[in-house]
């Protein structure tokens, strides 16, 4: 059983590496597809040493199979190439920015799952929910995160000038002092608020659906026939059974949290990976976007692996 799961994940890893290797080489217009004109244009527009680093890393003139071998060898040493825009190794950039992204996404997912789960369970147990509330939740859930971020930034930070609009700390503050931590906290509020606002509906709908399902299970109906008090039914029959079911489905939310935080960071100029993504997209920084893709894919795989192995095997169902 566990071996099968491991094999499956190895296949997934291989597929991701294959996709990230093959796609840039077969898409028309990409500088890596077999077309010497494109390399020639790149040669004209890039500085000499950046172009040399690019050619050394991708080696577009070698045979296909050698390129793939070289690609795997480089990745195994965490060598993602050399960023055009920042003129730095991609791995240094990404791993330097990673703590900010993790801080933002994990704080937001913890807070929003706490709020969302408890809110949904409460409304569904008290039979208080209305179609309007769920409709609102669906409406917010379907909004692109970055539009919500733009609106919040425009109104709260720029119009009302309540909170800082960009960055993670004021430039020039001394690191690791009391004022620094306070400053980081103050800058964290708006991005965190946006992320929480965008994550709560997903978790709410998930929890609401599964608790509605469990309310209709036979053992709950039987407990009602046996005249067990409502409070006890809620606590011992429903609540304890909802939690493992939600934990099994929370992995998708964790993956949404990381993409959401990438976009929020891009809007608020938070120094995480999202800002790298923005500059990579606007300046067509191929090595950087490849590094970000591989990193997010591996994040998704690791999250799913943890949920599949650790949580699903160790939580009892019903």
């Amino acid at each position, binding site marked *: 059983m566990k071996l099968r799961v491991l094999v499956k994940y190895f296949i997934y890893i291989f597929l991701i590496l294959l996709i990230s290797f093959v796609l840039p080489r077969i898409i028309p217009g990409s500088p890596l597809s077999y077309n010497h004109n494109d390399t020639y244009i790149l040669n004209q527009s890039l500085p000499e040493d950046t172009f040399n680093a690019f050619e050394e890393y991708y080696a577009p003139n070698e045979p296909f199979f050698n390129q793939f071998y070289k690609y795997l060898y480089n990745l195994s040493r965490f060598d993602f190439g050399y960023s055009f825009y920042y003129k730095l190794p991609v791995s240094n950039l990404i791993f330097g920015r990673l703590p900010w992204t993790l801080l933002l996404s994990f704080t937001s997912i913890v807070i929003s799952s706490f709020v969302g789960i408890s809110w949904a369970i409460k409304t569904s147990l008290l039979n208080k929910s209305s179609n309007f509330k769920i*409709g609102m939740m669906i409406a917010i859930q*379907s909004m692109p995160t970055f539009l919500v971020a*733009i609106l919040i930034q425009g109104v709260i930070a720029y*119009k009302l000038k309540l909170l800082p609009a960009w960055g993670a700390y004021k430039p020039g503050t001394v690191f690791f002092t009391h004022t620094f931590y306070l400053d980081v906290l103050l800058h964290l509020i708006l991005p965190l608020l946006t992320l929480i606002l965008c994550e709560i509906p997903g978790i709410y709908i998930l929890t609401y659906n599964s608790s509605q399902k469990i309310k209709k299970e036979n053992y709950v109906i039987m407990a009602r026939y046996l005249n067990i008090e409502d409070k006890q039914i809620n606590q011992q029959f429903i609540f304890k059974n909802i939690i493992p079911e939600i934990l099994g489905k929370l992995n998708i939310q964790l993956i949404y949290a990381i993409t959401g935080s990438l976009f929020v960071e891009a809007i608020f100029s938070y120094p995480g990976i999202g800002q790298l993504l923005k500059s990579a*997209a606007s300046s067509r920084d191929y090595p950087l976007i490849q590094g970000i893709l591989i990193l*997010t*894919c591996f994040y998704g795989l690791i999250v*799913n692996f943890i949920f599949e192995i650790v949580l699903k095997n160790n939580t009892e169902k019903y």
Partner: protein
Amino acid sequence: MIIKNLSRTKRICSFIIFIYIVIAIISNFIMPFSIDDFSSEILQTPSFKHILGTDEMGHDLFSLLLNGFKISILISIISGILSTTIGVILSFVSCYYKGIIDNTICHIANLLIIIPEIIIIMFFAIFASPTMINTILAIVFFSWTKVFKMARSKLMGYMDKNKVKYTFLIKGNIFDIFKKLYYDLYPVVITSFILQCNKAVMYETTLSFFGIGDPLSKTWGKLIKSAMNYENLFYDNVIFWYLFPPVICVFIYILSLSLLIFDEK
């Protein structure tokens, strides 16, 4: 007929979508200025001549917004149709052949669910040359997974039906199965088509905002991006006629599409 069965919210939503499509169709005729025309005075406030004012290049913002209706809705509908078709065809293939083909397609679909769709779409779109077709292809290639999952689970339930067994008995091929089952699949296809249209607008707006895609096709995302790039956006209420109209258009479109497929139970 169909309208009568809908609830009040859905009727309002379908009406809004209808209006959007009408505006998109007639946008060429009601545009007060051409989108290539940047001869107006720059940064005007709203007036009778320029309903939403002008941008820092001298384009009339109202015309750009109307043009955004045309292109954004076109992109959303085309990629909705294409990705729904791909998903449904793949689900038929995997239900008909079963075995290793089914497994492979399912694993690929699972993989595309595990890795965030938008990141891989961005990856594709950055590497491809910036045309509208490539943007649509990027969205179509990586967003069929949900359609596939929905259609496949539905089809697997129908595989035990008598008519399907009978078709297999007389050695019918995949097209015969399709003929027997396409009517049963109709609701799923409609729902997933609306979902895909919704997703496509979201992805296209995100891509445009990040500066990926055809710079000449002025979608809502491009308008939002140019508004955000304008440095004095937050002075003198410029935000109300520069940034907010495209944002509100996207909001209402996405909102009505997602309320239309919302299951009221």
